[in-house]
Structures are given as structure tokens and as C-alpha cells.
């Protein structure tokens, strides 16, 4: 099997699993997209094509939804997703310094993915963890009370 074909099968499987779970219903579009995004790491154009066929919904409308929400990505993402909480409570307790250190350390600008496919850097809206700001999240791990010095140590935990 060629590489492309293998990928294609993976996409179809992910879409089928999500639609099986939520039902073939236009109202369930966002949960379906969320699930496919989780399974594949992002929403490739092929996935939107398959969903479009299954839900009998134009691809443009699906792309409209997929590109609207921050948590859905139409671009490939890295193995580890580093999210920095850009909200004001984190900002006023030293968040900006952490953000600079983070960009410096992995050498990326927001919404970029490193060439080796290891990191994707992005910002997130408030996580409501303001009591322990500044906060960063790597994949699903939350780090509170971060300062620029800790950034390197935290990143080193990820292979």
C-alpha cells in the first residue's frame, strides 16, 4: 500500500468512527469535527471531503465551521502542542516574559510548527486557572506559576 493510500484509509476510519458515535446528522457537526481533529491531530482536506459526503453538506460550509473555531486546525500540527494562556491575569503576573522565553526556546512564532514536526506553538484563551498564572499547557499537561527560567526545564520533559 502506498503512503498516500495508507493515510487515506486512516482518514476514512477516523471519520467513520466519529460519525458512528455521533450520528450522521448536521447538528452534530462540531462534535464530529472535534473528534476527527483529535484522532488525526488536525482536519485534512480529505477528511472534510469524506464528512461532506457522509453528511450531505457542502465542503465550503464545513470549511467555514472548521476554520472558525480555534481548537479545530486545518493545518498539520506538531507532535506536541504548546499552548500559552494569553489572558490578562496571566499577562499581568509575568506572562509576557514567559511567552518571549517560550518563543525563543522553541524558535517558533504563534501558530507555527517546527520543521522536525516536534512542536506547534499556539496561544489559548483563558483556561480559568488564573490563580496559578502564568499558565502553559503542553498537550494535556498543565503547568502553573511558570517563569522564564522554568520554560526550558518544562520543555525538556518532552521527547
Amino acid at each position, binding site marked *: 500500500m502506498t503512503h498516500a493510500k495508507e493515510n487515506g484509509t486512516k482518514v476514512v476510519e477516523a471519520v467513520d468512527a466519529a460519525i458512528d458515535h455521533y450520528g450522521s446528522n*448536521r*447538528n*452534530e*457537526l*462540531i*462534535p464530529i*469535527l*472535534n473528534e476527527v481533529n483529535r484522532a488525526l491531530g488536525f482536519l485534512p482536506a480529505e477528511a472534510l471531503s469524506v464528512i461532506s459526503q457522509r453528511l450531505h453538506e457542502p465542503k465550503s460550509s464545513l470549511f*467555514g*465551521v472548521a476554520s*472558525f*473555531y*480555534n*481548537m*479545530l486546525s486545518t493545518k498539520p500540527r506538531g507532535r506536541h502542542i504548546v499552548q500559552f494562556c*494569553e*489572558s*490578562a*491575569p496571566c*499577562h*499581568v*503576573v509575568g506572562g509576557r*516574559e514567559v511567552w*518571549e*522565553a517560550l518563543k*525563543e*526556546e522553541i524558535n517558533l512564532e504563534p501558530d507555527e510548527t517546527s520543521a522536525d514536526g516536534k512542536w506547534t506553538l499556539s496561544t*489559548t*484563551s*483563558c*483556561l*480559568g*486557572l*488564573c*490563580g*496559578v*498564572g502564568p499558565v502553559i499547557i503542553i498537550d*494535556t499537561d498543565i503547568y502553573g506559576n511558570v*517563569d*522564564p*527560567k522554568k520554560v526550558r526545564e518544562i520543555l525538556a520533559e518532552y521527547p
Partner: protein
Amino acid sequence: MKYFRSHVLVCVDPECLSKGAHDLIDTLQDEFVSAGLIEEVQVLETSRIGGCVNGPEMVIYPEGVHYIGVTPDDVPFLVDEHFLKGRIVNKFLVSKVATVDEELGPPTSKEVRIVLRNCGQIDPENIEDYIAEDGYMGLAKVLTEMSPDEVIDTVLRSGLRGRGGAGFSTGKKWQFTRMPKNPVKYVVCNADEGDPGAFMNRRVLEGDPHAVIEGMTIAAYAIGAQQGYVYCRAEYPIAVATLNIAIKQARAMGLLGKNILGSDFDFDLEVRIGAGAFVCGEETALIASIEGRRGEPRARPPFPSIQGLWGKPTNVNNVETYANIPQIILNGAEWFAQYGTEKSKGTKTFALAGHLNHTGLVEVPLGITLREIVFDVGGGIKNNKEFKAVQIGGPMGGCVPAEFLDLPIDYESLAQAGTIMGSGGMIVMDNDTCMVDIARYFMDFTQDESCGKCTPCRVGTHRLLEILTRICDGNGVPGDIETLEYLCKEISTNSLCGLGQGAPNPVLSTLHFFLDEYKAHIFEKRCPAKVCRSLIRFEILADPCTGCTVCARNCPVNAITGERRQTHYIDMDTCIRCGICVQVCNFNAIIIE
């Protein structure tokens, strides 16, 4: 339904059973009969309370006292002391382990906790804990004793206003949604708490999910809905999980589903998860998102109470609003209305953040002054610095300076001060905060979160951000202030929803109260608070510098040079002004100018 003044929950885990939990329950029952208390005290079996090591264990509500190691022989003494004389028996008391809750500490003297009353007190994953705290009693009262109109009347009389920020009368909203004769109606809970710094809804959903479920069920009964949705943002995975557990448990107990509590009232709930869009907190955008579309607001009217989810009459309230309902029903409208001011009744939760000694969640009666919140409840400004301003109401709110410290916190007074109640985020800032930077920060947020439907909001916020960024970078030009004012007016008057209408508020309020700072940035190329990077420089003082090299070793761009034990030097052309050197210097030798 019978009411009891006290509930005794005895653990019947295998370990406690092996230590005689059943004997204990029997003895307790007998003793309550002979003391004449059996009509007042209810003994219940419960699952694991503590470690079960010194079992049998019990918790007595409403006090929430946790006793261990009680044997049947101790029962007469215990009943006499605790239930007749009202004294806690220290001999059996489990000393409370002081846990550090960084979000929600014990209430300060100025607080009144209605919405947060159970948070951190009960096990949110155990419906029985909630029931022991009079949980679902409000629903029982509504279903057995009250007509829908009576429920709405009670909520109206309580004076409760929407806690999502706009402050519309909850009772009136219910009335409007009740009116249409449509067999299909919906109840929606707005749990898309997106305001930076506001996390009270998350805490309620994580700590007391049943209060929200009960409030929604009561609302459904009042307006005539059979289906409800909680729209929760995806950034709150734990809240979603807790809520789903709670819904499952409520269903299993017949508190959701068909024929609730044996009545002919049916209601069920589903959690819908967002996908990261701030604007979905706006009710029409939220509805669009539940329907699986782009979360773009639409013009109102028609309001959701007439035409909401899938075109049906829909009642949309915030988490905190619903969480107030069971208590209002149970204790009466007058009880609730005793708190607050003439027009703003009850309590409001606030999330205190920023430069305060005690940050975290608080719940205070409305009408309390800003000074009381900052200095009494919040413990004053950190490091003994001076209070500069507080940003209230999230990204659509404004910054309120020190001269408003005696402002009573209610919907009307806040509007007069140029801000809004919002969902209750309060970011307190000390003198080292640059207000232009704060305005720029909020504009960065709103221009990012603008859905793009209305041009004034989409393009206007972007232009505001460009100008503010230029000012912070030291490239402000004369006329910038006038352009900012003009843009603010155009954006707020020509946008469809609250996001666009409120987006200029952080800029307008800082322009109004801190105009001097804008002027210093634009005309003197100076940042008075020493925050804006391009307008500051770092310098190492020769005297305190010991030449320890720690700054040079930590500098990410190698801008610091110097021999060991010699004064170091920062090359400002290379320096990125990250401030790490200031943080790591042990001798306070690095100053910012």
C-alpha cells in the same frame, strides 16, 4: 416529602461494616426514637467518607461534622451532646486537614456564599452529598407545591438578574419564554465562560454541578421545556466530565428524564462542547454553535425567548444564574432580596486576579464597595504597592481608577463608571502596570475573537490594535488619541452584538482616566510604568553588581558581558528586554529606566 433538620450519613463501605457500621445505625435509630428526635433527624447510609481506618465513620449535616471511631456504646452520649445540646464532640472529630485551595479559600467576613456554598464542601461526583445539603429540595417543592407561574413570580420577586453580565431580569426572561404557545421549548445554560480571568462558572460546574442541573430543571418546569443543553467551552474538560457524571446520577435517581419525582413533568439534559470561540458566549452565537454552525451572532429581535435553538422558544441563562435558583425557591424571594441594593439583589461571585494578596474566587453581596473587595476581601495589594486600577467586566469592561474605590458594585453604578458587571472578572493592577499596554492587550484579544460579521468590529478593532501597538512601540504620532476616540465610537455604535459594542471600552476607559500615560508614550516617548519594551532600557549598576555572572549566564541572547567579579554590561542593541536578568540578579543591581 419530609423535611429533616439534620442528616446523619454513616459510611457502609466494607471496612466500616466490618467495624460495626450497621450496629451503629441501629443504635442511632433507637436512640433518636427514645430522645424524641426521630422526626427531626434522618440516618442515611453512604459510601466512603474518609479513610475507614478507624471506622465506623459518619458525617452530620448541616454542620458537615465528620466523626470517626463511634461505637454503639458512644451513641447515647453523642446524641445527647450533639443533637440535644448542640455541642460538637471533639473526641470523635476528625481534625480538618488544612488543604490549600488556591482558588477558593474560606469565606472572609464580608462574603455571603449562595452560589459557591457547596464548592469544596461536597463531593461533586456524589449526588447524595448534594442531596444532603438540601439538594433537589427546591425542585421537589416546585413540582409538588408550585405552579409554573408561581415559580416565575418567586424568581421575579427575588430580583435576580442575569449573572452572565448584561443583568437582565431572570424572572422576566422566563416570563417571555413561557408566553409562546409552542409545545417544543428549550432551556440552555451558557457555560461558555470566556472572559479572561473569570472562572467562577468553571468552579461551580466542577464543584456543585447539581445546583446548575436543578436550577435548569426548575426553569424548564416554569417555561414548559422538555430538553436542555449546557454549552460548555472546550477549555474546561474537567467541568464537562463532572457535569456528565452528575447528569447520569440525576437520571438514575429519577431527577432527570421521564416523570421527574413521580410527577408528569419530563426533562432531560445534554452537554454540548464548544471548540474555542469567545464570541459563542453571546447567546445567538451560542445557539448557532449548538446547531453545528459558525458561532456568529445574529440581530435581535427576535430574542431567543421567542425564536432560539432550532427556531423554538429558548431560555438562555448563565451558570451562576441557574445555581442561584434552587436556593431562591427553597428560602424564598424575600430571603434572596435581603442581600444587595435596591436594583441589584443577591450576591455575585467575582474572580479576583492580578496584584492582590488573596486572589481567587469570592462571593459578595451586591452593593459592596470596590475598596472592600480589594482591601478587605482581597487582602490589599501585593508587596505593599499602590493600587492603580481594576479592570472589571472582562474584555468588554473598563478600567476603574483609584478615585472610584468607594463605588458600590452593582449593575447601574458600574455602568456609570464606564464599565460593566460582565461575568465578574476583576483584575487588580498596581502602580507598575502600564494602562496603554493593558488597553493594547485587550484589543489584541477582541480583534482576535471578533467573528468578522460586522465590518466596524472586524476592521475597527484591528485598526485600534495597530495604533495602540504603535504607541507602545514608541511610534505614536500626534492625532492618535483623536483617531482612537473616533474609532471607538464608530465600533460601538455600529456592531451587532455585545462583543463589538463593548470592545472599545478598555480603550475608552483608559483614555478617560489615564490620558497622561497615553500622552507620555506619544509625545515624550516614555512609559511611566516602565513596561513598554521599546521605551525602556536595562542598566547594571556598578556598585551593587558583584560580577557573579548569573545574569550573563541566563541571558537568552548573550547581551550581557563582563569578567567574573567585574561589573557587567548590557548591550542594549542586542537586548530583547525579556527581564530575565532582573529576575535572576540576587543583588538588585539591574534597574529598568
